[in-house]
């Protein structure tokens, strides 16, 4: 018997053990859940292949929704800089209806749930978080608006290519078919690109690149800056650690376009693809760092002892806001009592905790710099909140129920 046959036999024997009977309560729970769940028609299927919904029906539906959206915009006005508080949504899941248009200044979030890969969603006027890119499928992460609000960059892996690494794409506020931005990413030198952020003038894009694949795994993670005119990328910073997951990330530009802030996790617990089975210890220290857009003048802004990640530079350039590391968010969920939102000057002075927690994460500045958006767990709800840069005036923007994790709220700059 070969070694392979031997292990196969062992595994088969081992798998035979264990329960084979579904607990009866599953039937009751499912019956209750589907009573509230409408069946999906054929929205996920191409029109040509499965014409269950006639084109005229779609036209009527889209027209009606467009009129409804126009009415909603007219009724709502432009008002405050963030969408007004809405009652808690029972679930941020889509209903299968066509998505209403994202209006100016509305908020996009990243949603992770147990059924699907991460998905970029926008907060609709009725408080639901609806898919921005329902046809893209796959995995959608790390979205960032272009400063004029007309484009949204994100990292994605299309649903029709399950084994692909993520690359950068660009869409718009209406979720138009994404355009590939990773035009200078070819293996083995470049494996995956994530965490895009547009420069203030929209001509460049900074991103995190996993580089130099060996034995199927990248060996480095680096920051690159894309020239969006030529499509060429330039490496500006190396994590300088043996490749591991989430060690360098969330780069954001200074408003003058000369520097970039990012976070660094030192000694992450495990390599990529093993992230879900980390050793039973927290990741190592994390810090916020700043580097010149040309790769010069790199230096640490926060101390190692301060759990820090997901930085964002204020529109006036005077402050950097940051939260806990996104690695913690992935590993442990949004329930860490010591999670807080802080600001610090780019020179490392003036550390100020503006939201003492608990459970606060993934901050971002609104385009006018008047508020910081962040996510905070509150009982069974996850709430998008806004706070003034000095920590005053915390207010709810939208709230979500359910098990899904809502993170990274970012407000569309007004075009």
């Amino acid at each position: 018997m070969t070694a392979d046959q031997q292990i196969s036999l062992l595994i088969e024997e081992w798998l035979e053990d264990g329960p084979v009977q579904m607990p009866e309560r599953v039937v009751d729970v499912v019956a209750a859940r589907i009573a509230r769940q409408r069946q999906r028609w054929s929205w996920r299927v191409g029109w040509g292949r499965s014409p269950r919904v006639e084109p005229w029906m779609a036209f009527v539906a889209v027209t009606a929704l467009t009129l409804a959206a126009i009415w909603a915009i007219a009724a709502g006005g432009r008002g405050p800089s963030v969408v007004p508080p809405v009652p808690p949504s029972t679930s941020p899941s889509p209903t299968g209806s066509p998505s209403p248009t994202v209006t100016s200044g509305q908020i996009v979030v990243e949603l992770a749930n147990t059924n699907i890969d991460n998905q970029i969603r926008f907060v609709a006027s009725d408080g639901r978080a609806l898919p921005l890119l329902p046809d893209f499928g796959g995995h959608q992460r790390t979205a960032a608006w272009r400063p004029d609000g007309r484009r949204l960059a994100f990292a994605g892996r299309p649903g029709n290519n399950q084994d692909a690494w993520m690359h950068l794409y660009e869409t718009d506020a209406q979720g138009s078919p994404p355009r590939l931005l990773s035009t200078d990413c070819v293996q083995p030198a470049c494996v995956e690109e994530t965490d895009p952020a547009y420069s203030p003038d929209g001509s460049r894009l900074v991103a995190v690149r996993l580089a130099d694949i060996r034995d199927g795994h990248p060996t480095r993670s680096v920051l690159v800056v894309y020239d969006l005119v030529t499509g060429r990328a330039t490496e500006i910073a190396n994590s300088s650690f043996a490749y591991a997951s989430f060690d360098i990330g969330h780069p954001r530009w200074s408003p003058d376009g000369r520097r970039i802030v990012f976070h660094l996790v030192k000694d992450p617990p495990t390599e990529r693809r093993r992230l879900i089975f980390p050793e039973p210890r927290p990741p190592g220290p994390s810090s916020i760092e700043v580097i010149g857009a040309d790769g010069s003048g790199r230096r640490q802004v926060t101390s190692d002892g301060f759990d820090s990640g997901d930085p964002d530079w204020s529109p006036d350039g005077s402050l950097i806001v940051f939260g806990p590391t996104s690695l913690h968010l992935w590993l442990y969920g949004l329930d860490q009592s010591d999670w807080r939102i802080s600001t610090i000057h780019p020179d490392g002075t003036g550390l100020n905790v503006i939201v003492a927690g608990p459970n606060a994460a993934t901050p971002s500045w609104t385009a006018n710099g008047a508020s910081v958006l962040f996510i905070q767990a509150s009982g069974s709800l996850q709430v998008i909140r806004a706070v003034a840069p000095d920590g005053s005036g915390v207010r709810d923007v939208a709230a979500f129920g359910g098990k899904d994790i809502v993170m990274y709220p970012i407000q569309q700059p007004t075009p």
Partner: protein
Amino acid sequence: MDRDRALVEAAQRGDQSAFVDLVRSTGDRFFALAYRMLRDVDRAEDALQDALVIAWRDLRTLRDPDRFDAWMHRVVTNVCISQATRERRRTANLRVLPAEGPAGRDDFVSLGDRDQLDRAFKRLTPEERGVIVLHHYAGYSLAEIAETLGVPAGTIRSRLHHAHRAMRAALDAEARQVSGGRSA
């Protein structure tokens, strides 16, 4: 089978009670599959609930009611993969869960082996776990797994190879430990 087909067709027409009957009729085998991927009764139950709700929602996209089982295997597997991928808090304190029910067959798979297989299995990627369970428990061929999961056959083969290698390495390590302990 004919009864299941009739239930699938009725459920596709929106008959909720038919779908509930279908769950009663077929749920055990999907639960068994979910448990073997997640190695935890509660998580398997959660995953199965989610998979069944997704199945209800998307049932009209199933063109051949006779393929319900295979289709459900895909839904359950994908939900389990997603759940394992998104697993957060519990992964911080991994522990080996004892297999439930009568142990049996210990003359072939020793308790030590069982522990090591548990540990090694939990260190596989969710996708590799899916391949292991579909192949060694549900009895799918590699081509059938590829078709079910919508992944190239070569990828399935490499996932299975890697999973076998990892589990074999775990057993070898255990054997070395035992033999070292004996000689000490």
